[in-house]
């Protein structure tokens, strides 16, 4: 329409103008569309106009800085966590080991009931009536007889011993009070049943050996019975432990 009313320029110049205009308009169209699309994308994704991108950049940089700081903190905390976990695992294994050790020690000092193969020795006062004029002491069992059998059992390799259900521990004394025998704090009367855990065969053999305590008792007509068992039970020590004078010494 412009070419109709306006003074006609030279044809070549018109064609040049049109083509240049076409190229430029194409460029503008392309740029405008791209720009609008970009703006839309920014508004859609960031929800702010592109003129505030600077503020966004500042916020981003601040966030990045914070993030870097937090990342180093995370690394630090992870290392500390690993340390704690290692320590916890170590203390757990240490506690488990200590617990196992404690159980072993409790069993060793006699605080746990024990079972296993062993022998049962039964001693009773002599059934023979004392001869006239004979010392009646010779027909009754003395604490030394019991203590002798217990000592022989230890010597034969017994691992746990009980006399009439009273556990013999390291501080157990076997003594007599008047006419009764005292083991730990318990008064006992015949029959005396001594239970020992260990290799039942060797225990029995050791007890029956010639010249042993049992042979002596048998010679004095005391009924002595030694019975091996595949399983005997030894009760735990029920008394107390007390150190009044003793202290733990640093000396080896």
């Amino acid at each position, binding site marked *: 329409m412009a070419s109709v009313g*306006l003074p006609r*320029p030279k044809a070549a110049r018109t064609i040049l103008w*049109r083509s240049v*205009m*076409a190229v*430029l*308009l*194409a460029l503008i*169209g392309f740029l405008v569309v791209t720009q609008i699309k970009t703006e839309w994308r920014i508004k859609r994704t960031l929800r702010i106009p592109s003129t505030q991108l600077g503020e966004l950049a500042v916020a981003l940089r601040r966030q990045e800085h914070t993030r870097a700081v937090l990342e180093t903190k995370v690394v630090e905390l992870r290392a500390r966590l690993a340390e704690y976990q290692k320590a916890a695992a170590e203390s757990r294994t240490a506690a488990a080991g200590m617990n196992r050790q404690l159980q072993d020690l409790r069993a060793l000092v006699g605080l746990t009931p024990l079972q296993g193969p062993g022998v049962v020795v039964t001693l009773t006062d002599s059934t023979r009536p004392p001869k006239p004029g004979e010392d009646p002491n010779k027909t009754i069992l003395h604490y030394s007889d019991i203590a002798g059998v217990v000592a022989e059992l230890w010597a034969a390799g017994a691992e746990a011993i009980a006399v009439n259900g009273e556990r013999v521990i390291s501080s157990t004394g076997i003594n007599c009070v008047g006419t009764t025998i005292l083991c730990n704090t318990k008064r006992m009367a015949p029959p005396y049943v001594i239970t020992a855990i260990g290799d039942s065969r060797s225990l029995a053999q050791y007890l029956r050996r010639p010249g042993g305590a049992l042979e002596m008792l048998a010679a004095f007509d005391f009924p002595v019975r030694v019975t091996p068992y595949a399983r005997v039970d030894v009760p735990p020590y029920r008394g107390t432990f007390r150190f009044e004078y003793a202290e733990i010494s640093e000396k080896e």
Partner: protein
Amino acid sequence: MWLPVVGLILGVALGFLFSVEIPLGYVKYTAIAILAAIDTILGGLRAQVEDRFDLSIFLSGFVVNAAFAALLAGIGDLLGLDIYLGAVIAFSIRIFDNVGFIRRDVITHYLKPGR
């Protein structure tokens, strides 16, 4: 006269077809480039209407204006000052000037050819 229109349509179509991602930091520069291009187009239109169109002046005007606007925007970024607004204002004023001249020219030459 349809050739420029075809070019415009072609450019728009290309813009829709190829989604060119303008990096977020350069949105400002493309906006100025668009302004420079519109300014150049209107200047060329005015020159054509006044029958004094010159290709070298036209193209050099476009290139130098766009480059200088971009330079201003870049310096503004460096200084933390929105100097590119100056280019925007200058381009806008020129665009309005050109529109005004084109309007007068068209009225003078086309609507009132008798005078």
